[in-house]
């Protein structure tokens, strides 16, 4: 039972870390970044790729993964998504085209990783996280990192959004882009910075996932992406506290389901969550009123 709690915490942390970037992009910038999963994977992949050639300590590799994912995401937003925002005629077309373009862009890091690893899992075997045993429960350093960072960063971000100037700026941007420009904010700079942070968080999630599991596969991003959507929707788009609650909820639900069934149903939970929430209560746990959007 105690071991289960560790499992749930670690899973919740992983999901929270991953979904944080997604909810930032979606809530603040109205960008449904389907390439988020691929960026996460690519963060892990670049850490692996570099570690194969250069001997770097693990903090540097984590920073590298974050930098790569962050820059790629910011670049993608500044080139692909910005072009669509400029060229499209209305909000709905922007949404659909952003979705499609995201799918396309996601294929690029995916293919690069597949080609380099011949579509097999990759990891950094030389970095083996220490394992601890406390009172009958065992956990590894990587698991601790994921749980602490995932849940901690989410809480920190939730508080920062309310308490800091930058946080208020982001919320203003999410609320009304034009007026925030009038107030002296630079939406493009803020937007690109937000996408960079979202991408960096994805990269962090990717490297930590790779270290925790021992390896990830090029298509690991796909699976997490759908769970990320479920979490963002369940928590309420744009609400960071909601993301935390939903991550914990999904982690608990999956752990319970694995307990009683064979585990092939776990992906189905996210799908059911998406369907039920959007039909019954589209704003999720803590989202703002979405009746016009939905």
């Amino acid at each position, binding site marked *: 039972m105690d071991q289960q709690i560790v499992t749930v915490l670690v899973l919740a942390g992983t999901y929270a870390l991953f979904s944080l970037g997604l909810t930032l992009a979606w809530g603040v910038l109205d960008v449904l970044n389907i390439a988020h999963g691929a960026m996460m994977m690519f963060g892990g992949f670049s850490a692996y790729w570099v570690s194969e050639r250069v001997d770097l300590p693990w903090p540097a590799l984590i920073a590298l993964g974050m930098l790569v994912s962050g820059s790629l995401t910011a670049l993608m937003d500044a080139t692909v998504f910005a072009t*669509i925002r400029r060229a*499209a005629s209305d909000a709905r077309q922007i949404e659909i085209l952003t979705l499609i373009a995201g799918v396309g862009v996601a294929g690029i890091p995916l293919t690069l990783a597949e080609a380099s690893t011949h579509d097999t899992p990759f990891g950094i075997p030389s970095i083996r996280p220490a394992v601890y045993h406390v009172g009958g429960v065992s956990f590894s350093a990587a698991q601790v990192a994921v749980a602490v960072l995932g849940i901690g960063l989410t809480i920190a971000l939730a508080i920062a959004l309310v308490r800091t100037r930058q946080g208020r700026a982001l919320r203003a941007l999410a609320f009304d882009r034009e007026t925030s420009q009038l107030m002296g904010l630079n939406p493009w700079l803020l937007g690109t910075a937000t996408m960079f942070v979202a991408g960096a968080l994805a990269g962090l999630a990717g490297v930590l996932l790779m270290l925790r599991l021992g390896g990830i596969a090029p298509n690991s991003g796909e699976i997490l992406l759908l769970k990320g959507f479920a979490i963002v929707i369940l928590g309420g788009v744009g609400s960071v506290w909601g993301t935390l609650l939903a991550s914990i909820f999904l982690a608990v639900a999956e752990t319970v389901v694995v307990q009683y069934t064979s585990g092939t149903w776990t992906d189905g939970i996210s*799908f059911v969550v998406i369907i039920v929430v*959007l039909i019954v209560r589209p704003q999720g746990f803590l989202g703002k009123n979405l009746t016009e*959007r939905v």
Partner: protein
Amino acid sequence: MNSWYYDNLLNVQTALLYIPLVLGVQISIRAGIFSLAPVGFFAAAAYAGAAMALHGWSIALATIVPVLASLVIASFMAPIIASLRGLYLGLVTFAMALLVGVIATNGGELTGGSLGLFAVPLGTSTLELVLTAVFFLAAAWRIERSSIGRIVAALDYSEELTSSVGVDVPRMRSIIFVLSCGCGATSGVLYVLTLASISPTVASFGTVISVLTMAIVGGIGRWYGAPIGIIFVTWLPIVLSSVGTYRNLVEGAVLALVAMYAPSGIAGLVHRAAEVVSPRLWGVIRRPAPFVGANSMAVLDSESRKEGEF
């Protein structure tokens, strides 16, 4: 020609069987209903047909029953998702489509689990596939030029305006939704007829993406966008076989570029080129049928023509 045909038989047949599905997805998105439910029904109908055939049902029944059942089920689904719009409808239907895959993987004996079903006693000829494809394409063409086609375009532009000219918008949306699911189901039974096997990959992330690519890259505004998109997705890997593993990268890049610079797809690009090359000839043969998000008030009147519309 003969040897090319036999060498590429599977590709030709696969391209043909996808036509109803892509047409269904296209007409749905064209009406502003971003629904990926046809893909879910594609998978479900294929599994149903396969399971039926393996349990001794006749070919006729195994083909017709899944399609009819899909139409019925879709009409029950329609009111549930009636209030959803845009991206959220897309997400829900996406989740539904993948849920079919999860159920299929856990279906045990009936669905063959993660390996799927093989040696299904069904079969069809290329001629039958061609006839079906031609039927659907002709239907799409007719619909485009009829009042239904204009309603579809009008719905995409503005539901309030369409409602204000007397169209029963919720009913039209339901009808379009159900029809598109029926198209998906038809492709599903064609799939299992052609390949005599099925596996959960038909309801995977990759399949949904492929279908979306086919629908968008070809050109969503017209009936001939579907065949163009299908040929693009089916034949690109062969043309790019020298590129090998980087095929997905090229497909992805093309998709992104299309979304950025040519949202009306290849068909749209051809139109724009034709307009430039020969405006007079073009004016004679063109018919108005706006693409996704086109702003045109003349949508409900097929005789008039606005600049920028194709």
